[in-house]
């Protein structure tokens, strides 16, 4: 069995990749994918610790996260499509009608 510490390192690496993706990528869909990666990093933690702690709560939480992530992706893609229809771009640098 893979030791929990290694799973934790893996999930932290996923978290870091996701955060970097959100901060550096400029395509709205890629940002959305990076956010999904952060959610999955949390899921990996939940599942791994559910195993080590011998407690089912983590797995249940994982299922809820998957459901919520699906709903969120649906709404997110709808917003991106509405934006693309009006502006013809999904580059977040060009989405700057409002600035202080």
């Amino acid at each position, binding site marked *: 069995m893979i030791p929990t510490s290694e799973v934790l390192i893996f999930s932290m690496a996923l978290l870091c990749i996701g955060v970097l993706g959100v901060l550096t990528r400029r395509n709205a869909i890629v940002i959305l994918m990076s956010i999904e990666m952060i959610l999955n990093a949390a899921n990996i933690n939940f599942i791994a610790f559910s195993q080590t702690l011998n407690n089912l709560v983590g797995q249940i939480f994982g299922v809820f996260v998957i459901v919520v992530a699906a709903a969120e992706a649906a709404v997110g893609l709808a917003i*991106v499509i509405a934006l693309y229809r009006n502006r013809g771009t999904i580059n977040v640098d060009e989405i700057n009608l409002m600035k202080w």
Partner: protein
Amino acid sequence: MMDILGSLFSWLPVELWIMRPELCLTLAAFLTLIFSVARRAFQPRWLGYFSIAVTAAVGAPLLDLFRRTTELPGQEFVAWNGMFVVDSFAVFFKVLFLLAAILTMLMSIRYLDVEKAHTGEYYALIMFAVVGMMFMVSARDLILLFVGLETMSISTYILAGYLKRDRRSNESALKYFLLGSFSTGIFLYGISLVYAVTGSTHLRVISDAIAEGLVNHPLLVLGLILMIVALGFKIAAVPFHMWVPDTYEGAPTTITAFFSTAVKAAGFAIVLRILVEGMLSARMHWAPLVVILSAASMIIGTLGALLQENVKRLLAYSSITHVGYLLMGVLAVQRGADTGARGMVAIAVYLLAYTFMNMGAFGLVVALRREGLVGDQVDDFTGLARRAPLAAFSMLVFMLSLGGIPATAGFIGKWYLFGAAIKADYVWLAVLAVLASATSLYYYLRVVVRMYMGEAEEEGGLRPSGALASALVISLVFTILMGLYPQPFIWLAQHVVLY
């Protein structure tokens, strides 16, 4: 009324019986969705009135629950193995959400006609968001809290982009969605670390585990920090505030009003639940972070608002400043039972006052909206006093109240909050808050000066719809009443205590 509704639900098992406000609202939201399919038979306007009526009627079971939970101190009803709890804390916030939702819907009816985007789904989404908030404040388990939070967030992402042909609304929704779901991810990762250390997602179990010596576990501290960062995004505290001005400016004005009152109050409710009920023993780790968030929010919010020419943006920055004040209340919650209750009561009083005055201020922006005029520039208020003296007077009251002038609701709120901060030995923070609120008078009064000193470019008064006028009157009456005779409101807020 109360008895009829009570007997209507008496057959329910007790677990569902304490959830009847949520159940009624969910049912009403689904009915609204179904009716809105038949546009010819059910005009959206009538769906709006239906939603307002249902939301107001849900107040009856809530008042019943309020009576039952306040009979004894610490009285509470739990369901689902302690996941869902109805205590006076939760009931107070639920009443606040209903109030904000009703005012929002009243303001929306004419506004959506002008925007040519009137559909029943709008009201259903507001009700779904309120259901999410209600589950959030009643959650004593992080799973339920997360699901409630997301029910609210997903509904509000859609509402921010509701005007789908308006580019600014699209942009507002995208920014809100990306940063909101990013913070959700961070929040989840924080929860997963806390779960890893404590082996539970139940706040009481987490609290016990922390008290038994896990308090300095590095993973727990990291998880706590990540959760505070995510909550900072949700309540819009500096440095996690970048999305606020853009989202508030671009979203439909009525929805901006809803964001700045109900969504913010829900955020504070879960901040209190998590930090006070779950993480009280780890206070030395989170208090310094909250101090930084509070001070930075007051400074950046005040500076940002100084030069805004757009009223919605000005109110967005002012709401960031108000988050800074409210976070002082979170800090004051600690240090013994007595001061603890004081911080909590201060937050409740302030949120109550803030709901009325901010709803009113946004209501005036809605009233200025008509064909060909967005009405969200400070210049649009020029000379309003001559065109519509009553509207100008109510804007004057809301602005003075937001600035914290005595004899208005805002003063009572600030009095309690600043007092709580001083009692909890955060004197320098309270001094900063007083300085910030003195500076904030400048930008609130700028609007007032334009209204009373400027010359109007056009003639004719405002003709708000009856619903909008009643929302404004409710906000105005409560803002003044709370300033002159605050006792009943303070009595209400005194029940907001977590045991």
